[in-house]
């Protein structure tokens, strides 16, 4: 009966996405965690679900794993509706945020757990476990107890355990959140390498935008149970589709203006040049989003005079490799400017209260209409 239903919904096209969410809604009481969300995840992709806490990204992942049942909509895996399939029958595996390692089992016991649930022979399991230990560089740790491992080692045991059954999709729920920054950065690259080597589709949930940008082929930015934008990292950063996304990803300054001519807007800080586009209709109100590193800063007025405004440095956020300057303009608004700290003694740097000129080429900003 369930099989018949499943084949009825089977999408015949071989080019179909690996995972398809179709108008999926999830409510917890009166709270809507995910609302009518549709999303495709392709074969072999490293896909990131990114958003602030409570945006529904983890709920989406848990619905894919089978721990939550959607209140509405369908979820397809390989063209098959899996909503009614029990978690233990789904060909997906999850790496938990807390790792959820079994404390009463050894490293080997944990990694081999998934295979032992199948009709695998003892030798087969032992072979695969050894293979997995090598994959996560934990050779020789097989007999250890979980409480004898460091945080980083536990993370790798959890990863190996979730990969041993060769899942169609590997789900990673904030997999690196418990690691310190340095280890996290290293592990991000290891994850990417692993994903490329195995060719398995990875779906990662994270609230760390930097992490999502580094590891993912595509990012789905979520807020309040909805998708805000789904695109590759560079596009999300350079071409955000809304002020919300522009603001959520990285630093940005948005300047409101009205289109007063072809490639010209009037704003509170004067007339600004932009690249003419369909979005910038004459008379329309738009927002110009400027990334801090796209703005040049100097003590003299630039010769070109194009998009040049003056202001005073109000605050400096020193980050080592670079600094973020907050510059107050004549209309009291703040513009964020990033500047690489090129010289060691900071001879060319500015201090608070310094008068500076800011300028940017017309194509530096993104025109946002919403």
């Amino acid at each position, binding site marked *: 009966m369930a099989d018949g239903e499943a084949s009825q919904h089977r999408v015949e096209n071989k080019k179909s996405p690996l995972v398809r969410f179709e108008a999926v809604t999830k409510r917890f009481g009166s709270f809507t965690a995910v609302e009518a969300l549709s999303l495709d995840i392709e074969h072999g992709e490293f896909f990131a679900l990114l958003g602030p806490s409570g945006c529904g990204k983890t709920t989406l992942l848990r619905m894919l*794993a*089978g*721990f939550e049942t959607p209140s509405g909509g369908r979820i397809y895996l390989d063209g098959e509706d899996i909503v009614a399939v*029990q*978690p*233990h*029958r789904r060909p*997906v*595996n*999850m790496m*938990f945020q*807390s790792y*959820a*390692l*079994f*404390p*009463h089992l050894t490293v080997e016991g944990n990694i081999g*757990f*998934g295979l032992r*649930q*199948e009709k695998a022979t003892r030798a087969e399991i032992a072979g695969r476990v050894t293979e997995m230990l090598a994959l996560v560089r934990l050779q020789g740790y097989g007999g250890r*107890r979980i*409480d*004898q491992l460091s945080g980083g080692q536990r993370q790798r045991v959890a990863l190996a*355990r*979730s990969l041993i*059954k060769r899942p169609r999709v590997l789900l990673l729920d904030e997999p690196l959140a418990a690691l310190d920054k340095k280890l996290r950065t290293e592990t991000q690259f290891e994850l990417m390498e692993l994903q490329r080597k195995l060719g398995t589709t990875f779906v990662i949930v994270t609230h760390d935008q930097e992490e999502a940008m580094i590891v993912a082929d595509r990012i789905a930015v979520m807020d309040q149970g909805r998708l805000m934008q789904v695109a590759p990292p560079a596009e999300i950063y350079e071409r955000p589709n809304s002020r919300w996304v522009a603001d959520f990803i990285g630093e940005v300054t948005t300047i409101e203006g009205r289109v007063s001519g072809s490639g010209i807007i009037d704003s509170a800080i004067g007339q600004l040049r932009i690249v003419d586009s369909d979005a910038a209709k004459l008379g329309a109100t738009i927002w110009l989003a400027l990334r801090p590193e796209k703005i040049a800063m100097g003590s003299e007025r630039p010769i070109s005079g194009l998009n040049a405004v003056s202001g005073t440095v109000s605050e400096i956020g020193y980050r080592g490799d670079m600094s973020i300057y907050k510059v107050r303009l004549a209309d009291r608004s703040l513009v964020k400017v990033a500047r690489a700290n090129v010289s060691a003694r900071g001879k060319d740097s500015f201090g608070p209260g310094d008068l500076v000129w800011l300028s940017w080429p017309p194509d530096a900003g993104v025109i946002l209409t919403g």
Partner: protein
Amino acid sequence: MRTSADNRNWSARAILLLPYLWLVIFFLAPFVIVLKISLSQTALAQPPYLPAFDASAGWVGLMEFAKQLSADSFRLVLSDSIYLWSYLRSLQIAAISTFALLVIGYPIAYGMARAPRAWQPPLVMAIVLPFWTSFLIRIYAWINILQRDGILNDLLMRLHAIDGPAAWLSSDTAIYIGMVYSYLPFMVLPLYAVLERMDESLLEAAADLGCPRWKAFWLVTVPLSLPGVAAGALLCFIPIVGEFVIPDLLGGSESLMIGQTLWTEFFSNRDWPVASAIAVALLGLLLVPILFYERLQQRSLEGSRS
């Protein structure tokens, strides 16, 4: 001159001494007295045994006293099969009761741990509530329930489960009912403490790795609750072995548990040395599971520390 660091050191040591002081006063001293009596001989005297220890006689008196001590009572306890059977019966009743307690207590503890958070404090309260009434009164209540024209027979006859009144009281069944009823909180609470602490995501991980629910229970929940099982089992087993009130009030008179045998020796036969020897031997017997439990706790402490 004493520095403040010295002072602190000294008071830290004093605090460490407190539990030992407690043990010496309330355990070791009474035990030495019992041991002394167990090595004495019965006599028509007040107290009813010899030799009496006279501290005023000094070292010579002590040597004289030591010479008169004998292991006769122990020899009797170990050679007469009455005592052996009594010990064995106590162990048997304790083992069966503990097993029954585990079988009944585990589902209760599991249900409590799985109940919504808000329900759990009242449920724990309900388990502890019987302690608010005197133990003796509760056992007397069971006499009312189990006697020939008691509530149980009445109920079973109304349900047509039995034709005539059955004899519940003065049987082993009554002892087991009393034991399970009285010791259930000691089984449920440690089990609940372990199960309640268990990480829900472990079961999700098991399901994720292809393990159906019933199997995850045996592969994850049960092994992780073993410390609670051990704690509950020992907390029940040890006192049940020495139990006196329940078998005396609910059980029959044909075979006695060791607590009853001890009572008989002490009060009916006024044979204090033999009664003391029984108590000392019982302690030796119970030392085995107690030491086992200690080791178990030590290990779990070490596990959580590393």
